[in-house]
């Protein structure tokens, strides 16, 4: 492999970040430079397709031990790079128009470049510490971009929430990395499997438990980053960021990094290992539950981006579930297709929001099909892919996951089927309410079609959304089940999913066509199953803050007051007793003196 290109791919965005921050932010060149770098990385990613190899340099060396920054190129990473840079390029271009009037434009593009650097690092990493490093860095970039409009309370809070929630996941991730290091003796992916085999051979009785625990710890990282229940709460809030950011980070790439990482672990440790681990069931169930709960919550959201955010959660749940069924390649394929169509949907919603003067409530839109037909068309393509209309990319990938669930004979298959019905339901609701019917607000009335800088990315992504399931495109997917073909077979799985699709669409259409306001109101779903309430009120407000206050009190009272103050007072008290002896009375002195003499004589003579 050519050594220069991958390093360039990794460090070009960093250089651009630095240049933007240090020099270019005052000149107005920052956006252009960032877009150019996105283009360049996309070209590099395309050039690297099909190459394999590794390269590394020591980042921290202590004696024989060293932590490396290394690059591992294989089908998985190059394919993932294509997704990252492809969506990245589209989003960069789209942002040029979307953020045109924003005064923090330079900061925004700096953040985007920073994100591209971090994401590239995760994808190319050849060892766990490097993964962790960039894992944290994407979190940081995401923090920057969610909080782009930092003067808005909600944006600032959302950014903080995203970072901290991810940190909680990383808590487990770090432990998992450390344990895996202990078990296999290595941090580099390529060297782990022999270590694991040796461990397995040496500890036939306990290895399942230990490795399961380790994998679950690592999975915690994915739960945080890929926003699985119960750490999913940050992702809907993250919609406070600019919409292109949502498209790039919170739909297509960063949130998928959890799945990518899990799949990397799975291939590294060996799929047959995973088949024996009870941890796999936990992963699958977590994914399934997330998919279901998120889909349910999506049905009752009014904010266009939040609907999409919950949809993202739900689809990520699918992918995680696939990994849990040791069908990570199916998950990766879904990741690949999902990246395109979800980015498309987000950018489409961005175009809508932009056109409606930052109106995000779907009930205040309506009739947009007439105002902005091209956007509507692309959005419809995205919808079709998401709800898995046969022939679209989403159909092929989702089918594979359901297939895997079916093969495993798990009840999760029915959960997946339910989600497959819910997805068309809420997407139909969204489409019908936002694009069809009459416009229901000033903003929607004055909306007009967006410019070419936005439309071109939308169009390209729409093509990919529809076509990326076919073999001329899906061979670029990071991973693909070997027996996959792009023909549509009718079997029990596809039958059930077709039925689900039809039920969902029909229900959505019947319920929402022509409605002025939401005819259904399920408080539990609107309150997002009270997760946020539970975290904010119970965990943060009552538990964490109360705990902190109590500990603070004890710190002041016990340690500072009793221990330290007590010791001081004790010393002073003894001193005051001593001072009592110095009464000033000569007789008492003489008496004390005499007493002392007796004591001394006793001590000297009789002891």
């Amino acid at each position: 492999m050519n050594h220069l290109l991958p390093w360039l791919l990794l460090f070009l965005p960093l250089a651009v970040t630095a240049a933007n921050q240090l020099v270019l932010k005052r000149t107005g060149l920052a956006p252009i430079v960032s877009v150019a770098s996105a283009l360049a990385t996309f070209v590099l990613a395309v050039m690297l397709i099909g190459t394999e190899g590794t390269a590394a340099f020591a980042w921290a060396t202590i004696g024989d031990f060293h932590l490396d920054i290394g690059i591992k190129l294989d089908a998985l990473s190059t394919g993932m790079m294509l997704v990252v840079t492809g969506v990245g390029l589209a989003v960069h271009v789209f942002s040029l128009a979307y953020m045109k009037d924003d005064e923090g434009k330079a900061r925004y593009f700096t953040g985007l470049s920073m994100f591209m650097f971090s994401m590239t690092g995760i994808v190319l990493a050849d060892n766990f510490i490097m993964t962790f490093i960039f894992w944290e860095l994407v979190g940081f970039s995401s923090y920057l971009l969610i909080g782009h409009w930092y003067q808005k309370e909600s944006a600032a809070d959302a950014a903080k929430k995203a970072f901290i929630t991810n940190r909680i996941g990383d808590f487990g991730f770090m432990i998992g990395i450390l344990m895996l290091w202990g078990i296999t003796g290595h941090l580099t992916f390529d060297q782990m499997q022999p270590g694991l085999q040796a461990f397995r051979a040496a500890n036939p009785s306990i290895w399942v438990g230990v490795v399961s625990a380790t994998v679950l710890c690592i999975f915690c990282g994915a739960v945080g980053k890929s926003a699985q229940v119960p750490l999913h709460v940050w992702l809907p809030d993250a919609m406070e960021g600019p919409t292109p950011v949502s498209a790039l980070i919170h739909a297509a790439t960063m949130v998928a990094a959890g799945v990518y990482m899990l799949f990397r672990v799975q291939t590294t440790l060996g799929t047959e290992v995973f088949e024996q681990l009870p941890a796999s069931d936990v992963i699958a169930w977590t994914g399934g539950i997330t998919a279901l709960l998120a889909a349910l919550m999506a049905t009752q959201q009014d904010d266009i981006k939040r609907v999409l955010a919950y949809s993202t959660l739900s689809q990520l749940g699918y992918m995680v579930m696939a990994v849990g069924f040791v069908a990570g390649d199916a998950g990766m394929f879904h990741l690949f297709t999902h990246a395109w169509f979800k980015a498309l949907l987000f950018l489409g919603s961005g175009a809508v929001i932009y056109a409606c003067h930052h109106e995000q409530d779907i009930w205040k839109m309506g009739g947009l099909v007439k105002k902005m037909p091209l956007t509507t068309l692309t959005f419809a393509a995205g919808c079709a892919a998401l709800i898995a209309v046969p022939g679209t990319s989403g159909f092929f990938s989702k089918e594979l996951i359901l297939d895997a669930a079916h093969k495993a004979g798990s009840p999760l298959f029915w959960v997946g089927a339910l989600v497959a019905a819910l997805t068309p339901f809420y997407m139909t609701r969204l489409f019908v309410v936002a694009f069809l019917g009459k416009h229901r607000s000033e903003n929607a009335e004055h909306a007009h079609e967006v410019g070419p800088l936005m439309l071109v990315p939308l169009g390209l992504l729409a093509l990919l959304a529809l076509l990326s399931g076919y073999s001329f495109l899906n061979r670029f997917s990071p991973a693909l089940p070997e027996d996959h073909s792009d023909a549509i077979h009718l079997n029990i799985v596809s039958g059930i999913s077709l039925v689900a699709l039809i039920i969902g669409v029909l229900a959505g259409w019947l319920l929402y066509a022509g409605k002025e306001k939401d005819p259904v109101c399920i408080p539990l779903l609107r309150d997002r199953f009270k997760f946020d309430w539970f975290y904010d009120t119970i965990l943060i407000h009552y538990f964490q803050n109360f705990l902190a206050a109590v500990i603070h009190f004890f710190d002041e009272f016990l340690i500072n007051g009793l221990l330290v103050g007590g010791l001081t007072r004790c010393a002073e008290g003894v001193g005051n007793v001593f001072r009592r002896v110095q009464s000033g009375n000569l007789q008492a002195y003489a008496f004390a003196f005499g007493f002392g003499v007796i004591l001394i004589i006793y001590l000297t003579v009789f002891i």
Partner: protein
Amino acid sequence: MLALIVFLPLAAFLAILLGSPARLTAIGAAALNLGLALYAAATWHCPCWGVFSVPVLAKPAINLAFGFPDGMSAVMVLLTAIVTLAAVLSGKAPEGRETLYYGSSLLLSCGALGAFAATDMFFFYAFHELALIPTFLMIGILGRGERRAAAWKITIYLGLGSIVLLAGLVWLAGLTGTFDMSKMADAGRIDPVAQKGIAGLLIVGFGTLVSLFPFHSWAAPAYASAPAPIAMLHAGVLKKFGLYGLLRLAIPLVPDGLEAWLNPLLLLLLGNILWVGYVTVSQKRLDLMLGNSSVMHMGYIFLAVAALIAFPENPLARSAAIVLMFAHGISIALLFGLADRIERSTGSIDLADLGGLGKSAPALAFMFGIAAMASIGLPGLANFAGEVLVFLAAFKSYDGTSGLGPVQITCILSIWGVVISAVYMLRAYRNIFQGPAGTLTCSAPDITITDRIPALLLIVVLLAVGLYPNILLNLLK
């Protein structure tokens, strides 16, 4: 040559006493010293650094001797020089108190340099104490808020800690029969019972100086009240003396004794990380929060020390401790320096009063953001390198077969501290720089160009070590 580095601040201090312009002299001396320290750190292997030695007492032999027994001293000297320059640059003396202000900063610097460079135990201890005196005085005289109470507290705590430490050191010197730290190991293995006693005294003594739980109550109020350069120098540099001492003396000389105290030490360092971590969460003022956070982060360095105690042949732990000491020194100095800027700019340090400062002071927001991120261990900044090495060091002996040992369990619990520090740091950043601007912040001036220099100096160091830790690790070879 090394003596030159140590005594240059002292010479500048005397020059200031004799009437030389205080700020200029201090900056000049600090800058010159940084140059020398850089050179020294790069070439510490050269035997020329180890020759300075003046006998002050013939029998028992005590020498005023400086040298680099290993890279750790060189790194600490470098850290001191960097923070000193940043501290004197960012200091702003009250009218008419320049002499005191800059003089004591220089004296503090001299003490710290002497302590890290001394090879004789007597001066190792003595220089540290020399540095404490200006700390106490400055907090009491030029501090703010509850300065008297805070100064009194730090005086008493550190005074008592030093005396406990002295008892341990004297015991050690008595058993080894020499004050030369490099020759102490030649005396042979110390009796285990004595080791246990010495180790206990050293842990409490050094621990108090490093604000080991539960001897930490002095730190937060003192740093909150201290003038910026003193807070920077003490929290950044001088506090590390205790850890340096543990690594330099305790670990090589009383390993068995330390091992006997391992489990209590693990509990105490968890106290630092979790207990003080939550204390930090409930702070309402930035300065107190930073003070507590500095206490909390000491726990991680203690974790490295504990890992070194538990697994003696663990070069990872030693390097981790040094990297983290260095990184924490730089980052906390940066935080204290910038907190002072925030207060100067807005007139308040209370988290509830501030908000939206990022709009009117973007450069300040950027720099503080970097400092905050460094403090919560973001990769790319030096602290992360230290922390990750600490965690790896703690898992050094874990192989999966035999469950998690106490060190690993402590490490796992400590990692939760990473979450805690994100909670309070981001909350502070959120409350100060984000959200809508308030009356105090809407027209607050941004950090001036001259004030940016010290902050940038520290940021560059943080980034350099963070992006490529081998810069620092190569110095340790």
